[in-house]
């Protein structure tokens, strides 16, 4: 059948062709399949077509004709329908960017990761005094501003998080050390100057080299951590 189709195709597209020589049944099939709101099987097509038409051969010919086009005639579950060519699926998507504001919880978490990195989720919760919702961490991972960088050498081996280069560029920082320290925060009035003496703000560093209490990520950790719907620390037992 395929060879017949190819031969016919050659007749149609490659030979010197009088357009009227294209069999009328191809026009009929084209129109029926195009207008139908669902794929049609051979029987349904035969019912609608004039008697005596070799539906099978006509379909094969039509399929061959459309094979190289932007729209192909495809068979789905023994029914025929026109579909956009598979290689053009990119054309069928529209990309759009939507601006989203981070939630307060996400910004807090991001700030703690920035200052305290490498830091585990449990440590973030300890600092914030609240349990972090999984969604907040997912959103932060989606921003691309944080990354899981290793695992803490403690029971449960929790993931440690740090900031990325994208973080620096988002906040126009040359280096993480440009984040203001305790005195600068007090100077700008963001921190109360009467804070207890033990209060400190760490000098942050995003040095990718693992700390002594960190061990490297394993294969699969990244996928786990980056998959938006997966709980990054779900196995940590924290």
């Amino acid at each position, binding site marked *: 059948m395929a060879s017949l189709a190819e031969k016919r195709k050659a007749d149609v597209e490659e030979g010197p062709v009088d357009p009227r020589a294209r069999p009328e049944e191809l026009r009929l099939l084209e*129109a029926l399949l*195009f*207008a*139908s*709101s*669902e*794929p049609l099987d051979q029987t349904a097509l035969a019912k609608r077509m004039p008697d005596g038409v070799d539906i099978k051969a006509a379909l094969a010919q039509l399929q061959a004709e459309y094979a190289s086009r932007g729209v192909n005639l495809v068979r789905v579950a023994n029914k025929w*329908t*026109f*579909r*956009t060519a598979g290689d053009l699926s990119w054309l*069928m*998507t*529209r*990309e*759009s*960017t*939507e*601006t*989203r*504001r*981070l939630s*307060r919880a996400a*910004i*807090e978490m*991001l*700030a*703690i990761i*920035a*200052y305290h990195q490498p830091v585990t989720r449990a440590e973030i919760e300890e*600092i*914030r*005094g609240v349990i972090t919702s999984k969604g907040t961490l997912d*959103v932060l991972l*989606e*921003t691309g*501003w944080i990354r899981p960088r290793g695992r803490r050498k403690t029971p449960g081996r929790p993931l440690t998080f740090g900031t990325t280069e994208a973080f620096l560029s*988002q*906040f*126009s*920082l040359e280096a993480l050390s440009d*984040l*203001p320290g305790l005195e600068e*925060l007090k100077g*700008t009035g*963001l*921190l*109360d100057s009467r*804070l*207890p003496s033990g*209060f400190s*703000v760490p000098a942050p560093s995003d040095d990718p080299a693992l700390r002594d209490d960190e061990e490297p990520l394993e294969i699969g950790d990244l996928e786990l951590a980056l998959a938006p719907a997966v709980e990054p620390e779900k196995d940590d037992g924290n």
Partner: protein
Amino acid sequence: MSAEILSFETGRPADFAADEPALVVDVEGYEGPLDLLLALARQQKVDLARISILALADQYLVFIEAARKIRLELAADYLVMAAWLAFLKSRLLLPEPPNADGPSAEEMATALANRLRRLEAIREASNRLMNRPQLQRDIFPRGEPESIAEIRHPRFTATLFDLLTAYAAQRQQRVLASVHLAKRTVWSLTEARASLERLVGMAEDWSRLDEYLINYVVDPSQKATVFASSFAAALEMVREGAVELHQKQAFAPLYFRKRPPQTFDAMAAPDLPVE
């Protein structure tokens, strides 16, 4: 207008052949007098531009007359048109007055002919329009359009100021949080009084206030508030005459008891707690 279908012989104006088929009139089918005039005009089988308005007026008047004879209720529009045509007819038949105002009878006739032509033209146009291949009747769009998938890329916004404010506020809040906790452990006067009343009910004799208070002080940091509230509550109860309070000297233990029934002796020489 009533919904009858009438069939009757039209009057025979001079220029109509005798074998003209009878005009079958579905009165309700007419869309007003102009429509009726147009239908009558078509009977003349000439180009509307060359139609005899005089003959048309006659035909119309005959129609109206016939309809009235069988007491067909005619809408006012039809009668107005009949009156106007009768007027036009008389104008057309009489010689034109030498210096008449307004349009001449010929001009009026032409205007009517033009209205008929226009109506006919628009009808023709509407026929041609309706005979065009129509969507969903003759030609069809794609039956199963493929939807365009929308891929949304979120772009997050946050400023360094947001970040620092959030961090500072968060850290500070945690440091200050313990102060708030301490505040919540204040023992209220109401609580103190309720406890004392319970105790007075149990102890008829002198009891040491501080010994009793120890039961309430779980956390040493609360000692001050419990003591202060209880002392204030006790003083209040003394003022009300419910209890008696006794202290030997400054900073000595405080004793209290339920006030016994009043007697003169007791008033004169109250018995005192034994150390």
